[in-house]
């Protein structure tokens, strides 16, 4: 598979048929692994990095999960290609900015990606749409065990998998869910949620991880600690926290409807109007408008099958994807015009909101 054909193939996240989930958009698990006896990527010399890259790339590409996938060095990727892979969550910002001696292997269905020489020698990642922690763990665990047959991982019985940063020690596992929480944002309750979630040993971040903002009311919730608990225990704890956030979001929606339905409908109706008729839309504004339409779908203001279209547009409204679709380099200002044009055409035939239905299908 080439990078070109990968980009032209929609990932599970951009696939219109698979997006059924309401509040949890996607589940992701990543495992940090390092080769025994080798310096970590940040400390390794250029020649060592190249050798580690080669060893890992060969081992990863040979697994069944990566059959007919893409194995490529970061240096071989163009700037736009990197941007698109970041927007699809297949590589991290850190990897996309790295120089010589790092790479990535991505499975044909874009569910698995293994970053090589990011912070650790291997960052094995599994992405699934919806709330699927268990299934994601099974699959990534299998891939990890397969890699173990050919690679010797740095491991200590006491400290578990040894990682470049001690915050990842032990299981080396970070499990996260991408959640759409518009009502908690509108009701200004996110700060409270973040604090409560922190106290439970979980972290809340924006759409693109550390330091990114939560545009489109999309948040990533993940485990903070990795040592002292088994993978299953961590996942169980995380699932419990996610479940309670889902309940809080649903309660917040019910309260918003009860307290001031016209105000909420006004937001959704205006979002529809701007998406259908706007001419200048920044990525951030587009995300926030799409988020309101998605909330409208959840409240049965729009029909259910529209949710998949919104989830696709969440990704396609990002700068990299937009540039790719328009085949050219654009300034940010020009991109905002193109984005609005794109969304106008998507929403030209988007059925009008029906506010009489609301409340019936509140998931």
């Amino acid at each position, binding site marked *: 598979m080439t990078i070109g054909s990968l980009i032209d193939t929609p990932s599970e996240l951009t696939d219109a048929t698979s997006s059924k989930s309401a509040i949890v958009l996607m589940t992701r698990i990543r495992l940090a692994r*390092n080769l*025994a*006896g*080798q*310096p*970590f990527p*940040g*400390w390794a010399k250029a020649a060592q990095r190249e050798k580690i890259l080669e060893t890992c790339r060969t081992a990863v590409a*040979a697994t069944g999960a990566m059959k007919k996938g893409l194995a490529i060095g970061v240096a071989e990727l163009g700037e736009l290609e990197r941007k698109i892979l970041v927007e699809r969550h297949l590589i991290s910002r850190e990897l996309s900015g790295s120089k010589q001696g790092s790479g990535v292997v991505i499975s044909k269905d874009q569910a698995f990606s293994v970053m090589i020489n990011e*912070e650790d020698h291997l960052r094995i990642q599994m992405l699934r749409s919806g709330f699927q922690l268990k299934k994601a763990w099974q699959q990534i*665990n299998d891939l*990890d*065990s397969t890699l*173990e*047959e*050919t*690679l*010797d*991982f*740095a*491991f*200590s*019985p*006491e*400290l*578990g*998998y*040894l990682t*470049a*940063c*001690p*915050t990842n*020690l*032990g*299981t080396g*596992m970070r499990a996260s869910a991408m959640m759409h929480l518009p009502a908690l944002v509108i009701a200004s309750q996110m*700060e409270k949620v*973040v*604090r409560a979630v*922190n*106290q*439970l*040993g979980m*972290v*809340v*971040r*924006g759409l693109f991880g*550390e*330091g990114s903002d939560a545009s489109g009311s999309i948040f990533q919730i993940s485990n*903070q*600690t*990795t*040592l*002292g*608990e*088994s*993978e299953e*225990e*961590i996942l169980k704890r995380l699932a419990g926290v996610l479940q309670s956030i889902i309940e809080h979001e649903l309660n917040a929606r019910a309260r918003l409807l009860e307290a001031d339905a016209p105000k909420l409908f006004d937001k959704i109706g205006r979002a529809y109007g701007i998406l259908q008729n706007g001419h200048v839309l920044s990525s951030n504004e587009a995300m926030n408008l799409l988020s309101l339409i998605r909330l409208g779908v959840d409240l049965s203001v729009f029909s259910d099958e529209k949710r998949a279209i919104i989830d696709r547009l969440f990704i396609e409204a990002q700068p990299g994807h937009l540039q790719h679709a328009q085949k050219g380099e654009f300034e940010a200002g020009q991109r905002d015009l193109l984005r609005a044009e794109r969304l106008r055409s998507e929403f030209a035939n988007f059925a009008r909101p029906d506010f009489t239905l609301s409340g019936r299908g509140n998931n």
Partner: protein
Amino acid sequence: MANPLKCDLCSKPATVHLTQILDNKVHKVDLCEECAQEKGVTDPSGFSLADLLLKASLNPEAGGVRCEQCGFTPADFKKQGRFGCPACYGAFKGILDPMLDSMHKGTTHAGKVPARALERKNLYDRLTKLEFDLSEAIKAERYEEAARCRDEINQVRQAVDQKPSR
């Protein structure tokens, strides 16, 4: 104030005092305004007290400890926030151990073990030892022992071959 608190990161007077409760444990830091700004303390979502505490606790002059495997020092850690190689965990055990307790849920690994890789390593370690024993036995002309070593080596080699290598 007779004895103002000093910043945990530099030695300026601390004006920002932060308490974070994580897993029912209380963590406190005192910072000067500059360090607080720089570390993003004011942004509750993007800030991890554990990371900060870890860096603050590492004294760069800590007795000239150095990882023999890769040459890494605590000063390097303070700069990078990451270790040099897997062996650093052994070299800096004394500095790291107290931090792990506040950073994680526990201090002992309770998760997956790379069973196949460990098994493979055990076999190779045994092979190395047996080969050493064999050459020693031959040198000392203890032929009975040498024969026993040789038989065992053959057994272990067979076990290694049976492991699917790919």
